């Protein structure tokens, strides 16, 4: 059963999602503590991305509750959920492609404002400007601030998307296969950058690269056909016979 209290920030209670006859997520329960990096692993089609889509309101859960900081967010729209403090990246890079790196981060950095006076001058919004500057440093993209982001390397685009997600000041960050499509070398550079960028963040990470998972995560949840198969530390999961059978194929 999912725990509550003592530092738990996200709890999924018997969450289901069916697409027609297919149960993509089947009574999945899990809880994530503040400050932990939780990896979600499982074979293709296990329901990992669907789970992230349920948490961020892209899909509505068929059944179950999703508690974030104790409140049920299962019926909220993606923008409301973002404002509650959950941010994410997508499996297929999702940026404001025609805008510069600076403008991309700015758009996220100003997103917590409640009122947009049509006559306001952006240069007077010093807090947003500072936040944007800090994020440019943190992502290491400061020297590319004026580059239109469709012209960035793929690796830089993945980092930029993380920078955008972080610029909303989330309490929970969901990363959907950050290393997908990267070469080993680029992956290593990304992981290094992630370590610096994501210090202290509560994260749910969907990732196929077991090397990355083992290196970054505190705990793992294994999904299989939409069900939670196992949960534990990396060492426990590696030692779990059932997991080895269905996922690691040994």
């Amino acid at each position: 059963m999912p725990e509550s209290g003592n530092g738990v920030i996200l709890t999924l209670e018997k969450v289901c999602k069916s697409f027609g006859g297919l149960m993509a997520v089947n009574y999945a329960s899990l809880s994530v503590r503040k400050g932990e990096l939780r990896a979600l692993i499982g074979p293709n089609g296990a329901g990992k991305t669907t789970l992230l889509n349920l948490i961020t309101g892209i899909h509505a859960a068929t059944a179950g509750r999703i508690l974030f900081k104790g409140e049920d967010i299962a019926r909220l729209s993606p923008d409301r959920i973002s404002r509650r403090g959950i941010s994410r990246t997508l499996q297929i890079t999702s940026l404001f492609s025609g805008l510069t790196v600076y403008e991309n981060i700015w758009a996220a950095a100003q997103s917590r404002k409640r009122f947009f006076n049509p006559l306001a001058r952006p240069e007077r919004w010093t807090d947003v400007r500072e936040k944007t500057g800090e994020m440019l440093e943190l992502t290491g993209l400061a020297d590319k601030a004026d580059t239109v982001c469709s012209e960035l390397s793929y690796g830089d685009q993945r980092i930029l998307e993380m920078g955008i997600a972080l610029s909303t000041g989330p309490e929970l960050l969901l990363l959907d296969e950050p290393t997908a499509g990267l070469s080993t070398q680029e992956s290593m550079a990304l992981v290094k950058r992630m370590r610096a960028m994501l210090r202290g963040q509560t994260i749910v990470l969907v990732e196929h690269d077991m090397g990355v998972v083992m290196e970054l995560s505190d705990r793992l949840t294994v999904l299989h056909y939409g069900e939670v198969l196992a949960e534990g530390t990396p060492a426990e999961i590696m030692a779990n016979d059932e997991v080895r059978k269905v996922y690691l194929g040994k």
Partner: protein
Amino acid sequence: MLPDRWKGGAFPLAFGLLMAGLAAVPFFAGLFYQTFLTEILVWALFAISFDLIFGYVGLLSFGQALFFGLGGYAVAIPILKLGLGTGSGLLLSIAVPAAFAAFVGFFSVRLTGIHFVIITIIFALIGSTVGETWTSLTGGADGLVFMAPPLDLGVAKLDLMDIRTTYYLVLAIVALSYLFLRRMVRSPLGKVFVAIRENEERARLIGYDVRRYKLLAFVIAGGFSGLAGGLYSLSLKYASATFLHWSVSGHAVVYTIVGGAGTLVGPILGAGLIMSLEHYLVKLMQATDLAVGAVLVLTLLLAPRGIAGFLRGRRK
């Protein structure tokens, strides 16, 4: 009215010079050219209102004619049937179309792509059908002819039956509208609009209520389209149901695409260029639409981002 990259003092200087030039026109150009320039200014305002919704938010609205036509009637009907003044007519030409835009937008901004285009055409068709059949109010396709009462500004009374005075009034209102919209698209609000244009899903995921901002932009654009219609009928002393026809929106679409969408200054250039072209070509050939079509095709092939987009690209 210059590209974004002209920072600091360059814009106020260039804008001031251009305004001084336009203000001097009546001193050396005859009434015909004053009327012609008034018309260009009105259509330029209509085109920039379209550019706000198309170039900045990414919604191809063919419904702007509805708001243009409503703006025209919002000036004509109160003057003719309610005995109201020109000033209240002009205010109504913003408020009434903006209110209709809120209604139309409520249904339309839920849709995207071609579905959005079609629903805006449908609303404009409904508007023009109502306008053409409700002749007791609108005069139908024959329209309404009215006398514009003088506009009392406190310090001066403007005689709007005078072509030169009308030209100055239209110039002042179009210039102020341009300055307002220019400021707005550069404001943080404008950045939300552009973010939505670039990637709706991403905008939603960082916390923007996309529908709400689309509706807001649609209402603002509707208000300015209405103001353009109001100025048009004020300059002609005439409003007609034909203004409501969805194809009227096509003018704004063409001016904006030729001039450069998402620039505000582009649609003004586009309106000036195409309307001048039509004016001079009509002496040579009847089918000016053919020439306009050719310009449109050439633009799409050679400078897909329009004249302003092309010029900006070269500067980089």
